[in-house]
């Protein structure tokens, strides 16, 4: 266990934000979960008691008749904003006094940094470069993430859970978002920050970064395993595999939706459902491809003269 190595990674000034983000995220997940749980208990209670549901104010916080439903922004909100501004300023001041912004040597195109890492918030994308060619990891995936985020309000047809924390009413959407945000985004950043060392090789936390380490890995392509040699056959084979993944996966998504989310499925138009299927399968494809690479050393699934996937 090389504690010094671990400390050097964690204390690198530009890594401090991600080190800080982890407990912060844990805290806010806890805060959200606590409220979601309380709301879920209330929902269950109200669903079992129609009379109470009619009179209850439908929040977990106390409310008594005669209490005003609204409060003045001045001072009740503004004082909180003022306090928040002061606290943020103090945190920022203390942080800026105790920790200096990094400054390396002057830029030198002839001296490559190893590892050359992007800023921490982009390390998830950089980590994806291991599993996909740059045009997917660097261009298509980020575009899909942005578009995927933007279509969320238009494909989530569930009217429940608007304006309050809940888990039971939105299991699928919250589960999907947590998977995307925590597993595919944050965890990838953590891998990129703490685990990737020189040569973008895998070093477990606490393992010394060995700049001379060589790894003899033979990566194969999926068509090779099936003994396919001609280029034409490889292209067709890959198209079948990838197309098959989306067709078969699409069917699985459909049968799961029909079975477990019948109401949501009923509300969705064909376009909404199609987009959901596609985005969901693309999202799941990332860890699948990671698994293929890490466990079976498979580099490409689909090889064509123009692009490889």
């Amino acid at each position: 266990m090389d504690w010094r190595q671990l400390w050097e990674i964690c204390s690198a000034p530009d890594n401090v934000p991600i080190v800080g983000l982890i407990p912060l995220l844990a805290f806010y997940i806890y805060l959200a979960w606590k409220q979601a749980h309380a709301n879920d208990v209330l929902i269950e209670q109200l669903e079992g008691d129609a009379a109470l549901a009619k009179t209850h104010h439908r929040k977990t916080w106390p409310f008594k008749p005669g209490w005003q439903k609204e409060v003045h922004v001045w001072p009740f909100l503004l004082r909180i904003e003022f306090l928040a501004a002061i606290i943020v300023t103090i945190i920022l001041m203390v942080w800026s006094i105790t920790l200096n912004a990094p400054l390396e040597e002057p830029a030198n195109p002839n001296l490559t940094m190893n590892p050359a890492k992007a800023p921490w918030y982009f390390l998830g994308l950089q980590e994806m470069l291991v599993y996909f060619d740059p045009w997917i990891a660097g261009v298509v995936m980020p575009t899909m993430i942005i578009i995927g985020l933007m279509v969320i309000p238009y494909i989530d047809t569930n009217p429940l859970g608007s304006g309050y924390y809940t888990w039971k009413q939105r299991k699928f959407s919250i589960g999907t978002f947590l998977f995307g945000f925590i597993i595919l985004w944050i965890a990838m950043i953590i891998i990129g920050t703490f685990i990737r060392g020189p040569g973008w090789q895998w070093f477990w936390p606490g393992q010394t970064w060995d700049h001379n380490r060589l790894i003899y890995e033979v990566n194969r392509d999926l068509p090779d395993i099936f003994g396919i040699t001609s280029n034409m056959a490889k292209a067709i084979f890959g198209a079948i595999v990838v197309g098959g993944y989306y067709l078969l996966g699409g069917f699985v998504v459909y049968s799961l939706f029909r079975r477990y989310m019948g109401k949501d499925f009923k509300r969705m138009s064909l376009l909404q459902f199609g987009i959901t299927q596609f985005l969901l399968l693309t999202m799941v494809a990332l860890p699948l491809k990671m698994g293929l690479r890490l466990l079976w050393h498979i580099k490409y699934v689909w090889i064509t003269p123009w692009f490889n996937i």
Partner: protein
Amino acid sequence: MAEENPKNGKVGLVDRVKDDIQAMKVDIPAKAKEQIEGLKDPTKTQVYTSIFRHKHDDTPRNRALGVLSNVFLHLHPAKINRDAVRYSYTWGMGGITFFLFIILTYTGVLLMFYYHPSKVQAFRDVLYLEHDVPFGKILRNMHRWAAHLMVIGVWLHMFRVFLTGSYKKPREFNWNIGVLLLVFTLLLSFTGYLLPDDQLGFWAVTVGTNMARATPLLGHEGPFGSMLGMTPYNDVRFGLLGGSIVDANALLRSYIWHCIGIPIVASILMIVHFWRVRKDGGISGPAPVMLEAEADKPRRGPKAAGE
């Protein structure tokens, strides 16, 4: 009254002056007294009333006016849901992100006084800031860390908005503006990364823009790129960097995007974002919980807009 000159019936100059002095002895103290009386309550002065349009006694009307008659505060409604001020609901992340943007603008403008976006001077300017400019080090540190905090703030804000389902009807469009703001926040941070012109920024931007080489159709290494005549000297990466390598033009371009281009676009989007928060019915909650049985019935009455 000055006495008439017995010789020609006219008032002499000396007498007039004497007379004025007499009058002044009465007038000025009287005015001074009035002035001092007036200053005892400065809220009644013309200057004060021209600036502040309403009284500040603690009445509901004045509380509302305090928000509504102030250009910076009138972004807020006069009153909000009693539960909406709970920290546990909003986490305050949207506001904190905006506050960090203000800090970044402020520290950024100050940094611009000391920084030249040229290969010769950029790195030296940062050294100069670190070692010679009074408070230069803390200025740079604050700008750097506020930028990182802003990225975190945007992510947590988005996370909260998702978990509370606040992107749902009628706030779909504002969620989209928010996604664009996320992108611009990351781009602001990324363009700033190159500016110190050190190894860290140089290689981070090299790695980042190398991906642009691989853009399908538009990058010279991307699928179908070479078929469309893309070379390292005319593809999308060339456009981003102003050259085929990260050099002087790239530094200038990222400086201009960082200090002028993106902040303007982001500011405009922020205006729309905040405006839409109000127009879409204020902050989304905490709304009364809905039951499964009510899911497909349209909401009516006071509960319609999240109460």
